[in-house]
């Protein structure tokens, strides 16, 4: 019972993270949201009795993918468009 409700909660969290990742103009937050999707997927895989896949997703999806996205953003630019130039200066990545 509590297990099923937890899965529901996770799925809803995952979908909202996905929507957030798509609509967010700030690419840094979008990438973090993508990482959240992977993190939730890890939990869901574990609950669906796939520990091998959960381990892989945790190492590759959550850590490595997020990091290479971050490096790319660091080397290119942070915003989807050039409207918020001011914000760009405050970037913790710079």
């Amino acid at each position, binding site marked *: 019972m509590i297990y099923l409700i937890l899965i529901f909660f996770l799925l809803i969290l995952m979908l909202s993270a996905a929507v957030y990742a798509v609509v967010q103009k700030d690419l840094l937050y979008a990438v973090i949201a993508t990482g959240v999707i992977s993190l939730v997927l890890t939990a869901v895989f574990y609950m669906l009795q796939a*520990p*091998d896949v*959960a*381990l*892989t997703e945790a*190492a*590759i999806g959550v*850590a*490595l993918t997020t*990091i*290479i996205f*971050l*490096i*790319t953003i*660091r*080397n290119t630019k942070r915003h989807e468009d050039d409207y918020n130039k001011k914000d760009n200066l405050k970037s*913790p*990545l710079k």
Partner: protein
Amino acid sequence: MKKFLVILILAVLGFHLFEAFSGLGLGVTRFEKGVKDYYLEKTVSELHVANTVTSIVVNFRGFDTLGEVTVLFLAVSAMGGILYKRRHQTGDRSVLFSSSSIVRSGSKLLFPAIILLGVYVFIHGHLSPGGGFQGGAIIATGFLLMLIAYENFSVSHNTLSYIESFAGIFFVGIGLLGFMNGGTFLQNFLPAGVLNNLFSGGVIGIIYVMVGFKVAAELTGLIYTILHEKD
């Protein structure tokens, strides 16, 4: 306008996909004697590998895994070519964060533990969840941590490519050995051992360790390549 069109197309697509999957039922046994049952039976009775996913990945569908490590190898090589610059400035690396001393000493402390965990995961790939991919990826995260924390931490590119090549050669070589011993490619030619022992499963454990080395070297090389990129 374009967005509406896209949403319309996606709605149609989603409807049909949902139609194809909703009739399936969740968590029901779909096939009386499917491929699954055969694998579950043979992994205990013939291969003596406790983790069925490992026996599928390395043995039943080992060819896929060979292709997969090749894909990673290709990805690393391709990135090296794509990010190549004529005037080669080495030495300066883009720094993700200017890390504090807490991060530094923390990484130093964690690094051996992460490597150990990775090695444990791929050595016990045939007994417990995990294996070459997972262990390799975990080791790569350890190196990633060090690369982020220490600006002058560097991995020898040659060493990585040695490890990668040797692991790859071993993988294909073991496959060819099985082939030459009168069997087929990737066939198990070592004694299978006892289920749930460390030395069980014949070549499966060896191949998965090789995959672990290879994946670790490839993923570390991949991150190293992209991290070295600076405008």
